[in-house]
């Protein structure tokens, strides 16, 4: 990377004055990032460790006087966090599984099996990209209600499959798999399912990873849709429960619950950050 020329030339940077400016800007950006992005997170994590008096104090304390953990334990018990976290995990995992199985199968069919009206179907799927999801929540809600799926995780799982973006991503990837490879397998007597399972899928690991992360994050972060379909408190995912209960909780307990709700996705990000960042960056150059 250091070899590529950017806005400022390497020659300018090599000069003493250029170097001084560079390090000033660098320090400024580090401070800005720390203040803008890390400090709010620090404030949240430590806010939950303060006592109820301390958290309401002005001016606030930068570091908790004594690092208490009862905010976290209270949140865990008072808010039924295990229930809501489990609901979220079930909803996210199910949506991921349904999407992976049904979208992959459909993308494979559209890409390699030449179904009749395949072009029309693909057109219909791509057309839904033009229809912003949120604008259709009310009729979607009514359909889910008619099917008797309210307060059922299927209300998350099945609509998640209707994800044109992920399906198209998969199809485009499958399109690139050379035909000869599949034909060779067919000559050896492998069925379509066998070909999908032992040839197409292993070759598609990168795209499956991207789709998996998108699927999990989308469900974990969603708010409006689960707010509509889960009126039952026991069934609500963590995002809905947090908002519903936020009015009646002591501040430290609420903040602790917020931290706990953020941990899974932040952890996922830190583990897979390289893939996630590469995936997002690749999306742009592809155009």
């Amino acid at each position: 990377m250091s070899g590529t020329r950017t806005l400022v030339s390497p020659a300018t940077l090599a000069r003493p004055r250029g170097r001084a400016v560079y390090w000033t800007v660098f320090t400024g950006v580090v401070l800005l990032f720390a203040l803008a992005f890390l400090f709010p997170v620090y404030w949240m994590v430590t806010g939950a460790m303060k006592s109820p008096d301390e958290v309401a104090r002005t001016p606030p304390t930068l570091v908790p006087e004594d690092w208490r953990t009862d905010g976290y334990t209270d949140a865990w018990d008072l808010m039924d966090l295990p229930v809501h976290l489990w609901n979220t995990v079930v909803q996210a995992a199910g949506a991921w599984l349904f999407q992976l199985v049904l979208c992959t199968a459909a993308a494979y069919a559209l890409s390699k099996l030449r179904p009749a009206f395949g072009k029309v179907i693909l057109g219909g799927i791509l057309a839904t990209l033009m229809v912003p999801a949120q604008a259709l929540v009310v009729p979607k809600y009514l359909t889910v209600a008619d099917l008797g799926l309210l307060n059922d995780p299927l209300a998350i799982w099945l609509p998640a499959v209707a994800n044109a973006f992920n399906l198209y991503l998969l199809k485009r990837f499958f399109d690139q798999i050379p035909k000869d490879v599949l034909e060779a397998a067919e000559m050896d007597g492998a069925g379509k399912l066998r070909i999908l399972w032992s040839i197409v899928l292993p070759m598609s690991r990168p795209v499956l990873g991207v789709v998996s992360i998108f699927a999990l994050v989308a469900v974990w972060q969603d708010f409006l849709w689960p707010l509509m379909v889960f009126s039952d408190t026991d069934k609500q995912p963590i995002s809905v429960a947090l908002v519903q209960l936020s009015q009646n909780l002591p501040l430290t307990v609420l903040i602790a619950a917020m931290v706990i709700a953020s941990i899974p996705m932040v952890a996922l990000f830190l583990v897979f950050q390289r893939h996630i960042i590469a995936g997002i960056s690749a999306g742009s150059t592809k155009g």
Partner: protein
Amino acid sequence: MKTVEHRPAEAVGIRPVTAPPPAHGRGRRRLARQGRAYAFLVGGLVCFALFSWYPAIRAVVIAFQKYTPGSSPEWVGTANFTRVFKDPEFADAWRNTFTFTVLALLIGFAVPFVLALVLNELRHAKAFFRIVVYLPVMIPPVVSALLWKWFYDPGTGLANEALRLLHLPTSNWSNGADTALVSLVIVATWANMGGTVLIYLAALQSIPGELYEAAELDGASLLQRVRHVTIPQTRFVILMLMLLQIIATMQVFTEPFVITGGGPENSTVTVLYLIYKYAFLYNDFGGACALSVMLLLLLGLFSAVYLRLTRSDGEDA
């Protein structure tokens, strides 16, 4: 792809084991092949039909009906539209949504672009910057909203504390009718900026270095280089992200719902929020669908432009 279809004899020859008797072979084989293809397709197809295609049609139908779940719907012509138009909140919601979109575009475009521009020049701690800027995106939006609601708290909030520290007058932030919308735009920008910055960064990295070199030889200053090299070279990505952002911010819901509840004085009610209210507070699904259709048409227009651009320009770019 077509060659196999036109030479069935060869295809049969390849698989002698499964080849049916030649008389009806072709038709039956094709039928079996279609059956297999649709077996793979059907699950996804049913989901799209039920949760994408049908709701889109249904929104239009219910917009002209009096609809109460459980009882049979009645046709009411354009009554839903006229009722919604007369609602004083209707104008508020559209005005707020447009203001929010424009503000988000101004702040949400300029800040990430400048940030990406600066980050692209830094040669150290690259991974650190990328992780940190993307961190808020991974925090659930509900948590971001609640966190900023706490920051904006007039008593114990960090926002006013920061102003006091700098000896500046304090603000009502999300609790004041004229500052609430801007406060929400700040939250949305903070929470969503990471993705935009990363995409701009990728676009900046694809600019050939020779262009800068040539510009510098011609005596172009730093700002001139930004204006005549960087911006023209990334024009396509900039336009894409702007359109995507318009589409996303026109559907804003979580921030006003969690932080302000649409208040104070309806200053943060958005169109999607109003749709939610019509459906779940007024139990008026006809009105909710009438509003949805309006939002759909407007956003559909933006989406169509977006898809056109990505298709045509993307290919030869």
